[in-house]
Structures are given as structure tokens and as C-alpha cells.
């Protein structure tokens, strides 16, 4: 049943982003050409810029930045709206009468939101790479560099790869924690019979303040742990320990938010 929920959540996500993701990449490609057209080479082989080229490049860049901004705003709005309308609004009448458990509803929405945001980040990074001045020779060189890396794989490369994967995991866990904070705030707001949206915002602000207070309380301890780790060992281990500590703390906070949201949906559901 969880897989079926995911299928419908992902379908609505792709519907939302079917235009904006390709648009960002196409605009990046346009910018790639307008940027290179901006610089001209005169008869003496000296680089210069043309006014027309600069104006075109400026406009193209503005549109590109706007669409990138729109993409991230859409991702956040999509996350909030799919939960508020899809779980706590009128669509909730359908979702909560499907033969599934509340944790599956939350899990499906969360996974979809995390993947959406992650893909938006991937599109943003790709688009920046597309804009940069490159030639086919550069791409060839990149592939050769990767080939070299894989053919000369050693302990350090493994460590570095792990380091990257850990950062990736940290990013995904932080997305999830952020979204779950939104979910639990909206669920708390929905417990009231009036001003549900305003009270959801209040709940979010209060939770945020509590988290800041908690972080301030545990920060000296965390600093102590990290500093002592750095003092004890060398190499990559201090880095791994630090990243995993942050992942662990984030994960615990996420679990608390998830449990709170699940409890409200299971025991206190009260759709309008």
C-alpha cells in the first residue's frame, strides 16, 4: 500500500515540476550561449564585449535566476500544500479512508518532498555546470579524470567518497527534519477549530524557538565531543564522527516530529 501511495504522490509531483525542471536546464543552455556571445574577438585577436551581447546575456541571466528561485519556492509551497490540502484538507477525506495507516500517509508525502527538493538541487547544480564556458574537449577531460580516479582507486579515494556520501545523507536528513517540522506545525494548527493556518504558523515559530534553546543547551557538549575527537585522532575519522553526530541529532529531532504528527493524525484527526 505504501508503494501505491508513493505512486500517486510522485505523479502529482512530476505534474508540478514537468515544466520548471526542463525550463531551468534549457535557460541554462541559453545562458551558456549568450554568455559566450557576449565576448567578441576583434581583428587583432583582442577580447572585447558587444553592448547588444551584454544586454541579451543580462536578460537571459535574469530569467534564469528567476526560474531557479521559482523552482525552490515551488518546492517548498508544493511540500506545504500537499500536506495541508492532501492530508488535513478536503482531500484528507479520501486519504484517511483509504486502507492505509497514518504513518504511511506521512512517510509517502515526506519521501516525495525530500526527493522533489533533492532533484531541484540536482537541477540547479546541473544548470550551473551547463552555463559555465565549456567545450567538448573539457568534457572529454572530465571523463578522463574520472577514469584515472577509478583506475587508481585507493584508501584515500574511498574515504573521500564516503565523506561525500555522508554529506549527501546529511543534506537529505536535514531536508526531512525541516519538512517534518512543517508537518507537525500544521498538524498542531489543525487541532484548533478556528484560525488553523495562523495557529500553524505560531506552532512553527514556537517549535523553532524551542529548538534554538535546545541547541544552545547542547552546543557546549557537542563542541566538547568534537574538540576531544580532533585532539585524539588524525585523518578522516574526526570528520566522520562530526558528520554522524549531526546526522544523529537531526534524525532524533525528525523522529520526534514524525511521532507527533503521526499521533495527531491517528488519535486527534478532526477534518473541517
Amino acid at each position, binding site marked *: 500500500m505504501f508503494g501505491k501511495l508513493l505512486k*500517486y504522490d510522485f505523479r502529482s509531483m512530476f505534474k508540478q515540476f514537468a515544466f520548471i525542471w526542463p525550463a531551468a536546464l534549457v535557460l541554462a543552455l541559453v545562458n551558456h550561449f549568450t554568455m559566450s556571445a557576449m565576448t567578441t574577438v576583434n581583428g587583432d585577436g583582442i577580447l572585447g564585449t558587444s553592448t547588444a551581447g551584454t544586454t541579451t546575456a543580462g536578460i537571459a541571466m535574469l530569467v534564469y535566476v528567476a526560474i531557479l528561485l521559482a523552482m525552490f519556492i515551488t518546492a517548498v509551497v508544493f511540500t506545504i500544500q500537499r500536506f495541508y490540502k492532501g492530508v488535513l484538507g478536503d482531500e484528507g477525506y479520501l486519504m484517511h*479512508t483509504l*486502507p492505509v495507516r497514518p504513518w504511511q500517509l506521512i512517510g509517502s508525502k515526506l519521501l516525495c518532498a525530500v526527493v522533489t527538493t533533492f532533484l531541484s538541487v540536482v537541477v540547479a547544480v546541473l544548470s550551473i555546470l551547463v552555463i559555465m564556458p565549456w567545450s567538448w574537449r573539457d568534457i572529454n577531460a572530465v571523463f578522463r579524470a574520472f577514469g584515472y580516479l577509478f583506475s587508481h582507486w585507493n584508501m584515500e579515494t574511498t574515504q573521500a567518497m564516503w565523506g561525500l556520501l555522508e554529506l549527501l545523507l546529511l543534506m537529505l536528513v536535514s531536508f526531512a527534519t525541516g519538512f517534518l517540522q512543517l508537518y507537525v506545525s500544521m498538524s498542531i494548527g489543525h487541532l484548533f477549530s478556528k484560525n488553523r493556518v495562523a495557529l500553524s504558523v505560531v506552532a512553527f515559530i514556537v517549535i523553532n524557538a524551542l529548538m534554538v534553546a535546545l541547541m544552545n543547551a547542547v552546543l557546549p557538549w557537542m563542541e566538547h565531543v568534537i574538540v576531544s575527537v580532533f585532539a585524539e585522532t588524525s585523518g578522516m575519522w574526526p570528520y566522520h564522527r562530526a558528520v554522524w553526530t549531526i546526522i544523529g541529532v537531526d534524525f532524533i529531532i525528525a523522529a520526534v516530529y514524525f511521532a507527533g504528527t503521526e499521533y495527531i493524525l491517528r488519535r486527534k484527526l478532526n477534518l473541517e
Partner: protein
Amino acid sequence: MNELLVTCTGVVKRYGNKPALSGVNLELGRGRIVGLLGPNGSGKTTLIKILCGLLQPTEGAVLIDGQTVGPYTKSVISYLPDRMYFADWMKATDLFDLFADFYKDFDKARAMSMCASLGVTPSDKLKTMSKGTKEKVQLVLVMARKAQLYLLDEPIAGVDPAARDFILGTILTNYNEAGTVLISTHLISDVERVLDEAIFLKDGQITLHDTVDNIREREGKSVDGLFREIFRARNYEGGAF
């Protein structure tokens, strides 16, 4: 299979301090068409929402087919809420796919033929449909299932008398005869002819639950007549006139 389809024991629901249901005891068998009758605010929607798992009772227990409310009971209940519950960007056929995915008892071919007889084009986007057409789509979704319990919350409240007959006809020709249909309404004269049993709900309590034949025989009047008598009497009790 449990002989009793629905068992409510001492079900209480309070919203804050305001009671919506105050001690409902109810047993429903199978293969019945039951009217849940009461004026606005008597607790009909609250009771139905508790049966389908949209609300948790403050006190008391509910069993559907011998099971507490959960994924199993939701899989055997077909619920028609008093509002639109789908995303606008979908087509009716998308919803049929969704129902076929989640409910084993959903018959897509029957849904398509019901659409044809109701004059609905299932490949249209819901966004482009009129309110009445959307209501028909929702009715098709609910009635194309071979459910054990149909919970229909005010299915005829918002439509004209001709459409009421049409909707009731659709319900009667399509429901699973081994299952039970619970229809909540305050328009009793329209539904009385199809009911096997009637439940009167007043201020969150069941004041009467009997077969329609027994009521007519005992009271010497129609269910509608009895309903008007009971609920009108309350209005004059204060002696304000």
C-alpha cells in the same frame, strides 16, 4: 465473517466540552438499507465519521465486521462524504485507477458503465466539470465498489427532487446486496420507500432504532410522519408561541 456488521458500544464524542454523541449503542446486521435520520446538528455526520475512521470517539468502542477501525475496516467501507474530496487536476479515470489500486472490490468496468448512464465523460478533467457532475463522479466511485458497508452522508441534500430519485435509483441498482447501506439524511419522505430500518438520532443519542415495517405498524403512521411529530414537538416544548 462476523454476523453483526457494526457494533457501537457507549460511543461518546465531545468537541472540547460540547457533546456531539452522548452514549450511542448500535448494532447493524448485513444486507440492510438503514436510514440515519435526525435534524441538522443531531450527530449524524459525527457518527458516520467515527465509523469510517475520520474521527476517534472520546469514549466507547466501535467494531466493524468484528474488527476495530483500521486498514481492514477501511477496506470494506465505501464512504460518500458531504463534500468533494479529490484533487482538481485529476481526471475521473485517474480516480478510478486510484480506487482500483487501493480497493480490491472496486469494479472499474462498472464505474465506466455507470458514467455512461449518468452522462459523465470520465476522460474529462475534474476541474472542468460542474458541481453536479463532480458529485456524480463521487457517487460512481462509492457505488462501483462491492463493499460490506456503504456510509452515505447526506447524498441527496444538495440536489433537486428529480435528481434525488436519480441518485437513490443509482444507489439501489448498484449496491452490494450482501452489504449494508447507511444513509444519513433529514429528507425522510424521499428515502423512506427504500429503507429497511430507521435510526432516529436526537441530540447525540439514538431515540429509536427499528424496522420501517414495525414503526408503521406500531405507530400507525409513516416514518416521515413520526419524525415530524418527534422533532416538531421539541420546537414547541418551550411554549414560546
